[in-house]
């Protein structure tokens, strides 16, 4: 009995990995351009932004929450950072303030959810609209460019560490830190506990409100980091940036096997989930699938993965 549950969970954990290998195999057979170092680096760079957000989303979903406002958070922090840089503030200071703003926007979500006892879906649906609105007000609906030529800022999105794009390095380092936090720290354990059984967590003397506020802040911070990379790559901040990013992030988390009801899942799965989405995007492009049809394929893959997951757990 014990053995069975253990095997099941192992299977559940490696399933996304098998899925990724399958997709990579199919794409590389049908298109020889896919398995080249330069294309793979390209895929990883495209993946990095979604992956960073999805890492944060993993924490939120593990507590049993959800955050729909990340796309708007990304847009607002990007716009404000760009605005500061365009007006001549020290770029590094501007970037740090941008990160801080992301964390604050996330904390606002967390406070509404934890202290105001509002359902996460509703709370972040509201802040999604508010943050997007604030972005449009701040930018007057126009892109912000003329960001100066700060080396650090330019490298963030466009630089290379040896032959690895800096965004990919950022993603890997963040992954390592977050993996460690979830696995080895009391904070990580409490994140799982809150999602596994909030009542029991409170009654074990855990300050669940604080844990919730922290996870949303962490997600806000990571969304801001993603926004810096995006702004750097585009050399401008777009008021419409990040639309639908929340869905890609949630998809990556779910593809990775993390339960939407909280308490179960792991961040390695999320990384693989983000890779699956990135590889699909890239592969479908290479295979010349029309872009409208690509969305249908992507959605179908997500649905298939979740259905298979259901079968296993049932």
């Amino acid at each position, binding site marked *: 009995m014990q053995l069975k*549950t253990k095997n099941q969970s192992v299977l559940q954990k490696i399933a996304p990995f098998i899925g990724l290998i399958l997709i990579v195999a199919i794409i590389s057979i049908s298109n020889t351009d896919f398995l080249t170092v330069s294309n793979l680096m390209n895929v990883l760079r495209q993946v990095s932004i979604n992956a960073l957000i999805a890492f944060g989303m993993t924490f939120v979903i593990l507590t049993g929450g959800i955050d729909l406002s990340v796309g708007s958070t990304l847009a607002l922090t990007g716009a404000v950072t760009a605005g500061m840089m365009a007006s001549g503030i020290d770029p590094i200071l501007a970037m740090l303030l941008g990160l801080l703003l992301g964390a604050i926007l996330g904390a606002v979500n967390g406070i509404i959810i934890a202290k105001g006892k509002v359902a996460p879906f509703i709370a972040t649906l509201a802040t999604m609209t508010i943050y997007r609105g604030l972005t449009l007000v701040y930018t007057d609906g126009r892109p912000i460019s003329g960001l100066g030529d700060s080396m650090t800022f330019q490298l963030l999105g466009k630089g290379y560490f040896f032959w690895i794009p800096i965004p990919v390095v950022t993603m890997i380092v963040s992954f390592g830190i977050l993996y460690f936090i979830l696995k080895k720290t*009391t904070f990580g354990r*409490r994140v799982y506990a809150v999602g*596994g059984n909030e009542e*029991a967590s409170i009654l074990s*003397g855990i300050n669940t409100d604080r844990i919730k506020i922290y996870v949303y802040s962490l997600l806000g911070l990571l969304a801001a980091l993603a926004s810096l990379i995006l702004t750097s790559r585009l050399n401008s901040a777009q008021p419409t940036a990040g639309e639908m990013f929340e869905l890609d992030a949630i998809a990556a988390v779910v593809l990775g096997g993390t339960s939407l009801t909280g*308490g179960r899942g792991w961040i390695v799965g999320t990384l693989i989930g983000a890779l699956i989405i990135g590889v699909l995007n890239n592969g479908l492009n290479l295979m010349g699938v029309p872009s409208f049809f690509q969305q249908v394929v992507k959605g179908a893959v997500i649905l298939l993965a979740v259905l298979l997951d259901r079968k296993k757990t049932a």
Partner: protein
Amino acid sequence: MIKMTDISKSFSGNKVLKNVHFALEKGEIHALMGENGAGKSTLMKIMSGIYTRDSGTVEVKGEQVNFTSPKQAEEVGIAVIHQELNILPYLSIAENLFLGREETFGRTGVLRTKQMEKKTRKILLDLGLNVDPADPASSLSVGKQQIVEIAKALSVDAEVIIMDEPTAALTDREIDNLFKTIRELQKRGVSFIYISHRMEEIFSLCDRITILRDGEFVGERKISETSFDEIVQMMVGRELGERFPERKSEIGEIKLAVKGLSRKNCFEDISFELRKGEVLSIAGLMGAGRTEVAQSLFGYKKLDGGIIEFDGKQVKIDTPKKAKEMGIGYVTEDRKSEGLVVDFTVEENVSMTNFAAISKNGLISKDKERQLFDTMVQRLGIRTSGPHQPAKSLSGGNQQKVVIAKWLGIEPELLILDEPTRGVDVGAKKEIYSIINQLAERGVAILMISSELPEVIGMADRVLVMHEGKITADLPKKEMTQERIMHFATGGGKLAVED
């Protein structure tokens, strides 16, 4: 009525039933007992068509049957009432009763609501329940919902009703009512299979008893020809000795004193003292406010008024975190919803209250965590396959020990236990009593809420009886009798002082 012979069943190579016999006669109430994991539920699931047997025969009214679905069992008149009731709270009582076989105008799908409500009223009145069938089912107490479940079974012509721990969530008065209904139906020829851990109930209600142990048939007895001790011995396979182990604790100074505690609509004017090494029990009916008092003392529910003194100093306990830091532990009433994270491993559950001991600067030390786990497993005799076993796969008794282990780790000075042995088998019960005794002997002040009167009388140094949010009696050990406690729990006034 039903005869099961040589039933065997395995799950993934693990034999859970080995050549088990079971025979049920018409119009009898037959108890099925055994420790958790003895195979009771598996046997009943085979009888009701949820599982198929590997070997053996099942006969219903002399005819051999091979159920492959619960529907087939239902058709020959076997109904199951599960521990978790199948009541839809927002539907009306009548809608619940007719769920899945609603009466309509012809084939239109339009409901004959009035007619169904009329029938419901009649069926329920027949069972002694006078309620408005149009009311939502949630307006009924758990006990009355249970009667609705029985009515549901009867309205599909059930001749055999299997009841799994039906009284776990009932008050004593509701239990009396339920038993009355069962006996009434027995007279009309309905047979019952009654699964329970409560020995007193089985002796007062049942005609015969079948006992299983480790998937094997141990024996069948007439209730009138057996004894408490014999049944326990058959269940655990050894002499259990005294049901309530002896305690040699010295009652010390006052640990906790509360004065005039109140919380709106829950309880009022609660005052008592609890000393070191003392086991103080709170008895009363469900809904008397006992759990709420415990939750308030633990900082989980807010108080509206009153004073709490801990070690002689006035304190304010507004969060469970603070209570924990003061050295108060709380073993909750419902271990699955409040006590455990069922997806966590046993080890992770034990750690949940003990981060301070197993971590440094926020980093969990694997070694210290394992050490704590090993200590607790040894100290409490938790039967687990290892630290990585999911808590959900433990038996009820072992789950309860894990919840207790969570709190022993903080070395509590005051431990609140809310129904510490609910749904726990006899062997594990005694082990839990021993743990409580050991703690009291070490000077821990124990506050134990319990609805099982024999347990209160066997364990407590003193009992507070609550009725509708107020303390109605404070009885020392020598004045405790079941009758007295029930008298005060049901709101009876002062008894004449006996000599």
